[in-house]
């Protein structure tokens, strides 16, 4: 967050600060990300001190001030609240160091075709059993190369949040990958329209 805030400052587009005893910049990332996740579709909700007329120029300037690997696609005035974000399209690459066996792919797909997929989820109240199935759409595993498989589909972004790590947790020990990395592709609303 510091990085984002300083980049706006450096680019000449300082953020607006809250009032009161402990002012902080008005900036929030709509969908929190855990370490290791990459994304093409993060939504940043923020207020600027002096709104510029040329938002495209602002996006380019702030991008230049950001560290390598971060960029701003677009800055726009929202018409909908970020609470309307419902679905997240993801892609994961799962590593199998000893190789991808023939039946691995079908076994993995079977896991996610089940009517219910129960995993132990950590919540504020402790750990609870959580059924992921209603909060997934079109989850599919395909071959990628001889040591990796690709997982694609939609997961619930909010209410509830499905962390991709839960999907890995749902895989039985014998078919668990040695490592996985996830990428966010796009965000959608309840009706499956692209959220902006």
């Amino acid at each position, binding site marked *: 967050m510091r990085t984002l805030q*300083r980049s706006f*400052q450096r680019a000449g587009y300082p953020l607006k600060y809250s009032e009161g*005893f*402990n*002012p902080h910049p008005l900036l929030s990332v709509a969908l929190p990300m855990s370490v290791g996740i990459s994304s093409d579709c993060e939504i940043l909700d923020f207020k600027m001190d002096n709104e510029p007329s040329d938002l495209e120029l602002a996006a380019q300037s702030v991008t230049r001030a950001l*560290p390598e*690997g971060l960029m701003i696609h677009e800055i726009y005035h929202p018409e909908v609240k970020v609470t309307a974000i419902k679905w997240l399209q993801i892609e994961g690459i799962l590593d199998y160091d000893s190789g991808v066996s023939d039946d691995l792919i079908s076994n993995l797909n079977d896991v996610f075709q089940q009517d219910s997929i129960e995993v132990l989820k950590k919540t504020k109240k402790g750990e609870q059993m959580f059924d992921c199935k209603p909060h997934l759409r079109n989850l599919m595993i395909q071959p990628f190369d001889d040591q990796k498989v690709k997982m694609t589909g939609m997961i619930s972004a909010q209410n509830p949040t499905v962390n991709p790590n839960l999907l890995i947790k749902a895989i039985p020990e014998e078919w668990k990958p040695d*490592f996985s990395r996830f990428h966010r592709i796009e965000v959608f609303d309840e009706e499956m329209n692209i959220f902006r």
Partner: protein
Amino acid sequence: MDSRLERILMQVEKPARYTGGEVNQIIKNKDNIDLRVAFCFPDTYEIGMSNLGMSILYHTMNSLDYVWCERVFAPWGDMAKAMTDAQIPLYALESGDPISDFDVLAFSIGYEMAYTTVLDMLSMAHLPLRSKERNDLTPLVIAGGSACVNAEPIADFIDLAIIGEGEEVNNELLALLHQAKASGWSKDQFLRSASDIQGIYVPGLYEPVYRDDGLIDHIEPNDGAVYPVKKRIIQDLDHVDFPVEPVIPTTEIVQDRVSLELFRGCVRGCRFCQAGYIYRPIRMKQSDRLVEQGKELLENTGYQDCTLLSLSTSDYRELMPLLNGLLEYCEPKSIGLSLPSLRADNFSMDIMDRIQRVRKSGLTFAVEGGSQRLRDAINKNVTEEDLLNTCKIAFSGGWNTVKLYYMLGLPTETDEDILGIAQMANAVLHCWRENAKNKNRGVKITISTSCFIPKPFSPFQWEQQISMDEYRRRVNLLKNSITAKNVTYKWHDPETSFIEAVLSRGDRRLADVLEYVWKHGGRLEAWEDYFNYDLWMEAFSQFGIDPSFYANRERTFEETLPWDVIDVGVFKKHLWNEREMCYQSTLSPDCRKQCSACGAARLLKKGCVCDS
């Protein structure tokens, strides 16, 4: 970056410490470079990236177009283990390349407890630890920083040390290495030639000769090497190369702010303080230059805080114009200014007005001695009246947190002096009751003590450190005399101070001890999480070394000290005079009131004076 790192980074704490990729990092094309330098800071990323010296020298070394200087920090325990298990060698952040292939490994050493981490980083880089075991010209292992004024404990591990300020001498060394590489010089040829550059100490050219009683008889320079080795200073701080686009960490570090260095050296001459002596002569930066640099830095970084650095900020002559100039820029942008290192005796309403922010952090003052008599003896010219006056101003202005730092074990200290600390705390509390505007918020007074460590090149370099048991006795004495409930007493453990005292005035006979401690897991010893006192004691015992010989023994003026090979400017005789005055509880005037011809002015160009 090694692809195995992708998996390791997901398992370790704070992985952003190990990735690089920050804004303003310097990336050069490997094919156009002749010298690769690994700038190694023997502590974690968060500590090293907060170090102004490192930021300056990273910039100045990279200004040479044939040099690529990259940063390396010590991995935390979990990462170090994961890297060692996977056999991933220590790598530089910018390129991700293993540093064993670099031409120079340059260590910045600010404190003695970093020595074992230096060894650990050499080992993680897959290099032999001892200088004698590295026969090729490169990689060259060099060290700089304030701990190098006595580099003897690590003399067998490094090829050379930089004494003093590195902005110019580092580049002269790199230019010489550039030439040596091109001409095919041997390592010995290069080191001999390097030792002719002022500020470069090649330990291999000097041999300490010991007496039967274990003291040093003399230090023998070989092959015509210069004796003593004179330190380097930057004469003109206004025009020396200074980075205005520092690397901006992506993750949180200790000092997330712009740092402005106001001046080097100190006019006060407090007798326990090594820094005040080794950074003489006093040289100031002009306030308009600082305001200019400050603005540029804030614009280029986007930081919301700026800190003014020096050994004694309230002694900076142009402080008001500087504050005014900076505030003009900072106030409308809600950028905060902090001034650490303020003296307890000249905190004024003016200064206070200017550094006030919505959030008031606490005030900290280094009082050091509990009674006026002791403060005079250590030349810390602060009176109770001054301190209480400062507290009065602070309390009426709304501050309600005050920290007072003291040392226990200072030369000539008595129990009466220690009880003076408790009396002072009561006086401060009383002052709060009389002057605070809003008493409902309460007051927090913290007394903090640490064990005095005699340091090389200070007037107390001949003193003994008190034993740990004696320190604990004094702590209890103080603890029992503090009765007020809004006064908290925190004391540092004496074990770290004892080991630091051994290393600080150590000699080459400690090399085996350092290697033993490292080999048995010693690293990041400045951290409580890792410091292992028992391991050090085991190491001393293993090599038949009595650590008290270094820490608790009083030296005589006639004794040859291990660091006599180095000349930091101030005459040894001057330091001894100051020590004598301590035993008479006599103050010395500060440099502005009266010059005592300490000797540091010799380092300035002809016709120049200190503090102008």
